[in-house]
């Protein structure tokens, strides 16, 4: 049973799924400790974790686990235990009398893909560092010297990436530095993946983007290209540049929730649609005035507020300083 389970899990590698294992029970219930199942994002369930009302609950929590990327422990019991334990999710057992089960659910997500265009020193550093943090790395450039990209999972000796599967989480960095930048950047934005960065000076980036716009590439695709790429850590040299770009990729990856209004300050400003000037609540769905700043949308009650914001967005925006405030930890003998 266990080996079948592992085989099934191995076969699904590359697509997201969750595993659920019964880790505790009090009869009468149909699932026993060690019973396990694989749940795919379609809701399809493979294996056994008990029947009746248990199955739909497990599927629901499994889908949430996949969505949030977080494991969880759920308890299904007819009576809720008097003391509720830390981070255990309770469900009432509706179909049995007296029984209880505990089920551990863990998402198994495919590792993110890093696609690098180019064979430059920065491309090499990205390849090494990308592997070091466990990403699948694909490098695409004609005349690649494979010895310099030994860490890569896949080398494509052209700029043609149309055969790749972009259904997974893919992040693209164009680091061609003068070798057919336009072709590579065009291929990159046309994949439609959310993160495309271009390692180039501001001036060069603007020229190349302009050129692509004239070729008829959609401005929406071009305007979200991150150039200059990375976080401002004053990176010096290809390795530090690669560190700064990977930090931006992680930031992009982990702030998806923010855009849905989950954790960060920035996400809150967006989701509650508060006018950053006057503080009025504005419904984003119907707001007549809005501005974008640093990838966030701000909504306003009137043209006046919008105008004020647009003049000095940096003072009104809730941009997050990404160096954590550790002022409390600066020692002061006073």
């Amino acid at each position: 049973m266990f080996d079948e389970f592992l085989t099934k899990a191995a076969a699904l590698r590359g697509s997201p799924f969750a595993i659920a294992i019964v880790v505790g029970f009090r009869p009468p219930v149909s699932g026993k400790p060690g019973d396990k199942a694989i749940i795919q994002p379609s809701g399809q369930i493979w294996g056994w974790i008990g029947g009746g009302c248990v199955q739909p609950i497990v599927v629901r929590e499994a889908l949430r686990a996949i969505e949030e990327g977080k494991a969880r422990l759920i308890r299904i019991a007819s009576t809720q235990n008097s003391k509720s334990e830390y981070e255990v999710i309770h469900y009432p057992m509706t179909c049995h009398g007296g029984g209880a089960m505990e089920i551990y659910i863990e998402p198994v997500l495919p590792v993110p893909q890093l696609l690098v265009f180019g064979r430059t020193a920065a491309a090499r550093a990205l390849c090494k560092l990308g592997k070091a943090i466990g990403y699948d790395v694909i490098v695409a450039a004609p005349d690649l010297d494979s010895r310099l990209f030994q860490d890569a999972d896949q080398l494509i000796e052209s700029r043609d990436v149309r055969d790749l599967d972009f259904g997974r989480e893919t992040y693209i960095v164009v680091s061609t530095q003068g070798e057919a930048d336009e072709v590579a950047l065009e291929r990159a934005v046309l994949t439609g993946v959310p993160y495309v960065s271009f390692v180039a000076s501001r001036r060069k980036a603007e020229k190349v983007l302009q050129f692509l716009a004239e070729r008829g590439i959609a401005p929406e695709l071009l305007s979200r290209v991150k150039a200059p790429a990375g976080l401002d850590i004053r990176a010096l040299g290809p390795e530090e540049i690669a560190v700064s770009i990977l930090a931006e990729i992680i930031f992009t990856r982990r702030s998806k929730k923010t855009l849905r209004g989950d954790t960060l300050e920035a996400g809150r400003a967006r989701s509650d649609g508060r006018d950053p000037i006057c503080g009025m609540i504005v419904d984003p769905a119907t707001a007549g005035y809005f501005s974008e700043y640093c990838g966030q949308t701000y909504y306003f009650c009137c043209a006046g507020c919008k105008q004020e914001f647009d003049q000095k967005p940096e003072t009104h925006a809730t941009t997050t300083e990404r160096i954590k405030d550790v002022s409390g930890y600066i020692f002061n003998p006073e």
Partner: protein
Amino acid sequence: MYRDIFSTLNELSLRGAPFAIATVIEIEGSGSAKPGSKALIDCNARVILGWVGGGCVENMVRQEAMESIGDGRPRIVTVDLTDEVFGVGMPCGGTMKVYIEPVLPPPELVIAGHGRIAETLAVLGQITGFSVTVTDPGAMCEAFPKADRLVTAGFNSSEINIGPNTYVVVATQHKGDHLSIRKAIEGGAAYIALIASKTRAQLVFDYLAAAGIDESKLAQARVRAPAGLDIGAQTPEEIALSVMSEIVSVRRGGSGRTMLEAKGILRREIPEPDGQSEKPVSERIAENSKAVSGNPG
């Protein structure tokens, strides 16, 4: 001459001593040195080898070399050989440009602890040009193939030396962190991070506040807990990268914001080409893919 310079360079860098190379890159008028003339200058402003001109030129170059070793930045110095009032006052006439580049020993990354974060950080540090030391009683070579040095005697042993060129990350997940952090503070480390739960970090801070550490050292020290740039890192590998990016940022003086924000690029205006504006993006992706497919890869 070149051979001498390179063998001395090699010797110096193996010893890990900081120094600077000065190269004459341009001469106008007369001057005793010629383009390509070189000198090696150590951190006490002594010319170890070579020649870039005598007297006042040398003094100026030595001075600039010292500063270059201090701030780690290369520079081009223009020596005005005619201006006797404001310049170096050489009667020879002409001007001379000298390129000065510091050669500094690699910064040191000392990681206390084992586990996935420590392992990944060791690899990232090695790739980013740090000399990596891992210290942990349980550290095994297989887990840290890239580390330059493994010290099982622990952070507080005499084998671990802390200085202004040392970056310290404490990720032990067990007791003794307070002593490690104390040693890092007293050694004047360039960066100190503590990867620990809030509760344990607070215990360490309480200890430090009461430990009677030299006040000036304590005032300078900034212990980063939680460690790393706030990029939402979740997995151990991501946490290691966020710490590495903070180390680079501290070393180089970055802001930690995105480059786009830092450069003030709020929104890039890209003009809408004629006749395309009504189609949804997805359709245009499809069309453009077709259009591109004719191009040579």
